[in-house]
């Protein structure tokens, strides 16, 4: 498991990271325009309403785009090649993650591949949402 640079939550993002520790993918939705959004902020980035609330997302996503890194970030030297991806969550927002549970080869990673969230504990405070193919490894 790579030794990752870990995030430090801010007041606005604390709920996301608290949820991750409980294996819940916490997003916000705007009650005025109905749209879910990420990253966390206390107002809707589309319609600017501050009538927003947290909910737990399904954890289902599809592979929006990715690279297979052969150039390790600090802490990832023993993990190359690895997949850095942007996934589109079922609820609409996109987020960066890693794709795990599958050999990091282009033929295993077609664009729009269905994915499911999986959790990787890093510390007492931080657990990261990673994604794996929802049908299991091919």
């Amino acid at each position, binding site marked *: 498991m*790579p030794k*990752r*640079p*870990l*995030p*430090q*939550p*801010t007041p606005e*993002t604390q709920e996301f990271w608290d949820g991750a520790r409980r294996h819940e993918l916490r997003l916000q939705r705007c009650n005025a325009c109905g749209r879910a959004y990420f*990253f966390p902020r206390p107002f809707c980035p589309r319609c600017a309403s501050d009538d927003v609330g947290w909910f737990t997302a399904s954890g289902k996503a599809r592979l*929006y*785009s*990715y*690279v*297979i*890194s*052969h*150039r*390790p*970030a*600090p*802490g*990832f030297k023993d*993990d190359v*090649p*690895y997949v*850095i991806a*942007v996934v589109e969550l079922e609820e609409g927002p*996109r*987020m*960066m*993650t*890693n794709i795990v549970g599958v050999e990091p080869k*282009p033929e295993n990673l077609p*664009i*729009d591949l269905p994915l499911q969230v999986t959790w990787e504990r*890093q510390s007492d405070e*931080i657990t*990261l949402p990673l994604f794996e193919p929802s049908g299991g490894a091919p």
Partner: protein
Amino acid sequence: MSAAIVGARETEMVGVIPDKSAIELHAEAARAALADAGLTKDDIDGVLCAGQSPVAVAEYLGITPTYIDGTSVGGCSFMIHVRHAAAAIAAGLCTTALVTHGESGRSRVGMGGFGQSPQMLGSQFESPYGVAGPPTRFTLPFLRHMHEYGTTHEQLASVAVATRRWAETNPRAMMREPITVDDVLNSRIIAYPFHLLECCLVTDGGGALVVVSAERAKDFPKKPVYVLGTGESSEHSMISQMHDFTESRAFKVSGASAFAEAGIERSDIDHAMFYDAFAHTPMFALEALGFVGKGESGPFFEEMRTAPGGDFPLNTNGGGLSYTHTGMYGMFAIQESVRQLRGEAANQLPGVRTSIAHGVGGMFHAAGTLILTNDERA
């Protein structure tokens, strides 16, 4: 048309300059551009730069300005500086503006750190996933473009090949060996689908510009280069939040603004400089600026239309891929546009009347566009 570039120079060397610090590269370029314009530092009342603070650059050069602008949004900052200088001059905030760039990107002499608080949004939502700078972030959108439009690996490689062909005949270019599409595809994979030769260089260097009102443009030794249209925009600070991975919204807004101000058509452009941090960047620019339709840039590059002899001469200095790339390359794109419009370029094209210099900041984070002309009637 309110402003003109009357001084433009790069540092004497570009490439590997281990004996100069970043701020000295600003100063060397600034002093050369002042000489080019027949001015002294005491004529300057506006200072604009990125990387270093304009306060530090003004102090280093011995200038007391009435206008300072430290817009620092990556490699397109200098397109934006020219735009802001034109606006500041028109508003009477200064008369003679100096735009400087200097970066010890390769030798790392006198450079600030890249240290970021773990509370920054990028540190929370991107850094934990092993991104290692631009090669693993800037490149992320491209597989989506391939998927949506059938863009191929060979087409991406063609950008690097076409650009290298210009560098082959530019003595100042760092990489001048001819390359083929196969050479590109056989070079080391950095972040699939990107190979080493599809990634920009990392170099040292600098450049500077002097901007004055168009009315004064003919009072200087060199042929004036008029600022015909300008644009700027921004989109996201994290690549994962780019609205559509197949097009840059910042590019579209900035480009549309520049063309609207210039009042000319795409077909009126004689020469283009599109910031090429990675081989896909000029593809995104070609589409977003409206020179081709969405998804049509791949075949355009594969047909070598941007290479010497093609009908769309692009990145004629050899670009960030083969000429030089200090980190914030946009200054060098503007310098080549100015050289082409003055008739001073290493790969001089015949009869250039209009040139577009379009820059990207960060990983499609921001954009800046300049449409320049040597025609005072424009």
